[in-house]
């Protein structure tokens, strides 16, 4: 069940939670991730969905948050990472098709693993609880189907 132990997972999760908490305590903002796509698209698309006042108001700090995420991962890569840089071996078609569904689905659902899974559950939102159960269920089924079909 835990071939790599639970420590890296638990410690990593606590560090993520501290980052989200600091932002909330100082600013009241929920540092969630998938909204970033919608707010960033407001610079490029004139569609009313993207030009929503809330998207425009959030697009600067959400972009900066993502720059923070990248910086934090760079910091890890050059300090504690046992193996340095990492390049995935997952097939590009899986990254592309999966990415398309992730982008569409998280924006339709108004949340992802961080919006529903961390901030939503931490807010005791039943909506987020149902969303988490749903994406976990479909993720587990899909991964098993691909394994069953011999896709690696």
């Amino acid at each position, binding site marked *: 069940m835990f071939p790599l132990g639970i420590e890296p997972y638990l410690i990593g999760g606590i560090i993520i*939670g*501290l980052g989200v908490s600091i932002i909330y305590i100082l600013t009241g903002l929920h540092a969630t991730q998938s909204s970033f796509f919608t707010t960033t698209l407001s610079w490029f698309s004139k569609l009313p969905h993207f030009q929503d006042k809330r998207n425009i108001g959030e697009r600067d700090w959400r972009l900066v948050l993502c720059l*923070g995420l990248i910086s934090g991962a760079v910091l890890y890569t050059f300090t504690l990472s046992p193996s340095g840089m990492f390049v995935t071996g997952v097939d590009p078609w899986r990254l592309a*098709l999966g*990415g398309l569904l992730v982008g569409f689905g998280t924006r339709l659902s108004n949340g992802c693993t961080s919006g529903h899974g961390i901030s939503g559950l931490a807010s005791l939102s039943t909506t987020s609880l149902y969303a988490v159960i749903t994406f976990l269920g479909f993720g587990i089924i899909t991964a098993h189907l691909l394994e069953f079909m011999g896709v690696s």
Partner: protein
Amino acid sequence: MNARNITAYGGGILFGFGLAYSGMTRSEIVLSFLRLDDLGLIFVMGGAAVVTFVAINVVPKFMKAPALGGTFRPRVSVLTRNTLIGAAIFGTGWGISGLCPGSAVASLGTGNWPIIAGLTFMFLGAYLRGRFIRDGN
């Protein structure tokens, strides 16, 4: 840079560091969770949610408002059909790619260049949602 953006950047560094430390920036580890070979991901989401629970539910009992202004408001939303349909589509994409938005972004910082394809298509998916699905339900 205003105080809000500096805070978002600093908190984001912790967020990205934690994602990399926990292995969530590696699709392979996420996929091994979804195949139920390694259940560690539960501790990542759970650990982060418990810490954030304290920030959202306990800290406001001692502070009237966020230190830099704004208001404390828990992240609650109304359950709609789209919440669940979207979560099902997201879960399917997650199971195919092992990618979620935060981990994909942070993954760039580990030198994981093929993830650019995943992120490009995430933007396309988010665009298609705004282009073809009506808001407000």
